[in-house]
């Protein structure tokens, strides 16, 4: 750590990895310090790495074709895919970040959780089955189904890589900070370890290994969060009311110890039971809600999971499993956050002299683990948190590699005439390149505030990929030109407005008042994308537009029935 300023930023960064919630940073400004080397945690983590490398070796023997590499041969069941999707979504930051948010301000943490969850039903109602019926490897297969391949594929590959790179940077920086915090390892080493391990999983084991690593991690994380939540509730005789009452009491006494008057202290205590400072203005709230809700339906590394199941029915069932697990996980996180208030905030062993949390604001769940199960359980929880990041970056890298190999190489450069072997070779060569890029960017951004990056990834997904997918699947009049112009307009607007928003204009560049005052661009950029697709398609009189519109009936028949869709491979 170079100083309190940097340390504060790091704490904010850590909170925001994979949690696209800028306001979360407000609550998480405690310092992070490098902890003493934590041997039980390292041993547990070594165990996890050993197990996942065995999985990778097992998977490597099964990766023979491009289909195995991208989609595990379509042989993942609905239940397994549901767990893997939930694993992609339950990141280290949603575990540590949301429980820390609840630890700091109580109820507000629940507002984030609801926003993350409600994107899932939308995916099921509008897209999941049609995606499975129309696509093979990437969402670009669906978006370009009846359109001119080159322009739509190039657009989709660009937006996939943009989402993947922004997401990867945030994950890598978060991983470095988290490992430094939990294991006492140096930042650069931590980033390199993450990069090398993820390369192994993806390069040798493809989607089979990436999915199984994600499943193992999801089970570990759910198990560990379940244990913590039950242990917390058990100490209050399984009465949530008793837990809330104790939390209010602790918050009030902390405020009183800080010099607040009796009335103010009591107000500070009961404030954790209702909405607080999360929503500053309704426009930001709605814009941010749109990005969370509809961005999920445009994240390429999530969408690609729908191609790993054999048919539309399995895709549908996997969304139900995923939504169930994710919802369950958020309820557990809520209990864990309140449990941390009752057990950690009142225990001087976990606090610095000034009353702040030892090790930084994100340590709430980690300290709670110590309070509940001692050093060994602390090691276990730390190892699970690290494993979580590894599994998520592997999925992102695979998604980026498939955009390069399948969308750019096979569809644009080879015009769909290349063979599966050469496509597989290109994806495998892309993996180390992406990993090296992630390591370099992770180290370059160590001291930068990257809090906006995941938000930006969600905004791009909601303003580019989501409108493009929805319109191409549901609207007959949609044309190649409309898709490319409208989608590019949405992504461009999202990028420009993010630069002009407070998160970059003020916090990163250091300018005065930001020209775009809201925390998310989605409320402008997403409608603009829809409008662009609609208007440009409507005015499109080209020969290609005729072909595009004529292709709709055949596309619709396949989207609705699954007849002609690529099924699971034979093995």
């Amino acid at each position, binding site marked *: 750590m170079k100083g309190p300023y940097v340390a504060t930023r790091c704490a904010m960064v850590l909170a925001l990895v994979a949690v696209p919630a800028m306001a979360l940073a407000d609550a998480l400004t405690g310092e992070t310090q490098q902890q003493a080397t934590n041997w039980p945690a390292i041993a547990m983590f070594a165990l996890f790495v050993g197990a996942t490398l065995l999985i990778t070796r097992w998977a490597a023997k099964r990766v023979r074709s491009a289909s195995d590499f991208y989609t595990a041969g379509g042989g993942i069941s609905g239940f397994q895919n549901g767990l893997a999707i939930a694993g992609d979504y339950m990141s280290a930051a949603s575990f540590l970040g949301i429980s820390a948010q609840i630890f700091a301000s109580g109820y507000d943490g629940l*507002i984030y959780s609801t926003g993350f*969850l*409600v994107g899932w039903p939308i995916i*099921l109602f509008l897209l999941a089955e049609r995606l499975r019926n129309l696509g093979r490897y990437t969402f670009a297969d669906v978006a370009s189904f009846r359109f001119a391949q080159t322009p739509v594929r190039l657009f989709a590959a660009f937006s996939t890589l943009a989402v993947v790179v922004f997401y990867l940077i945030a994950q890598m920086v978060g991983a470095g900070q988290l490992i430094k915090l939990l294991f006492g390892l140096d930042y650069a080493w931590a980033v390199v370890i993450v990069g090398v391990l993820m390369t192994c999983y993806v390069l040798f084991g493809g989607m089979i290994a990436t999915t199984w690593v994600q499943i193992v991690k999801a089970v570990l994380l759910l198990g560990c969060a379940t244990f913590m939540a039950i242990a917390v509730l058990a100490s209050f005789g399984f009465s949530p009311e008793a837990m*809330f009452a104790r939390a209010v009491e602790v918050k009030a006494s902390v405020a009183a110890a800080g010099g607040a008057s009796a009335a103010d202290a009591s107000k500070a205590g*009961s404030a954790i039971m*209702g909405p607080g400072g999360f929503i500053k203005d*309704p426009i930001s*709230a709605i814009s941010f809600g749109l990005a969370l809700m509809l961005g999920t339906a445009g994240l390429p590394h999530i969408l690609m999971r729908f191609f790993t199941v054999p048919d539309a029915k399995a895709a549908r069932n996997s969304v139900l499993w995923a939504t169930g697990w994710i919802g369950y996980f958020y309820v557990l996180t809520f209990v864990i956050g309140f449990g941390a208030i009752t057990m950690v905030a009142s225990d001087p062993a976990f606090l610095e002299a000034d009353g702040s949390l030892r090790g930084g604001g994100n340590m709430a769940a980690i300290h709670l683990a110590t309070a509940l199960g001692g050093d060994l359980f602390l090691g276990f929880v730390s190892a699970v948190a690290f494993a979580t990041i590894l599994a998520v970056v592997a999925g992102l890298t695979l998604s980026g590699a498939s955009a390069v190999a399948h969308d750019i190489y096979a569809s644009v450069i080879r015009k769909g005439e290349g063979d599966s072997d050469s496509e597989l070779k290109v994806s495998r060569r892309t993996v180390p390149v992406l990993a090296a890029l992630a390591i370099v960017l992770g180290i370059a951004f160590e001291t930068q505030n990257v809090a906006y990056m995941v938000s930006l990834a969600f905004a791009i997904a909601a303003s580019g990929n989501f409108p493009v997918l929805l319109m191409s699947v549901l609207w007959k009049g949609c044309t190649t030109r409309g898709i490319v112009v409208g989608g590019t307009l949405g992504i461009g607007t999202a990028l420009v407005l993010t630069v002009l928003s407070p998160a970059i204009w003020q916090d990163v560049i250091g300018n005065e008042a930001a020209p775009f005052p809201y925390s998310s661009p989605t409320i402008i950029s997403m409608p603009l994308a829809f409008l662009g697709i609609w208007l440009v398609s409507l005015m499109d009189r080209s020969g290609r537009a005729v072909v595009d519109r004529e292709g709709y009936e055949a596309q619709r028949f396949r989207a609705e029935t699954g007849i002609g869709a690529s099924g699971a491979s034979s093995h």
Partner: protein
Amino acid sequence: MTESQAAHAAMASDPRYRALVQDRARFGWLLTFAICAIYFGYVLLIAFRPDILARPIGQGVTTLGIPVGLGVILAGVALTAICVWRANRHYDPAMQALREEHGA
């Protein structure tokens, strides 16, 4: 036109197929509006009337916001379950029957 293409075309123009696809799409949009109304209703309540959610229920400290917030999560899972249940019970068998009838 090959035999299978002819079968597909016949199925696509079958009024029962059209009704089924339309009904399924309408059901999907209905559920979409339901989840949007629930979620954005919740967000707007937080933005404009946070005091309602901060009101205690009963004698203790537990506020109305707790069941409402958890209820939004539960509603998301429940609507997903309803959609899957209806598709598995109703739409899938109906589509399968049409496919068999048309040999598609």
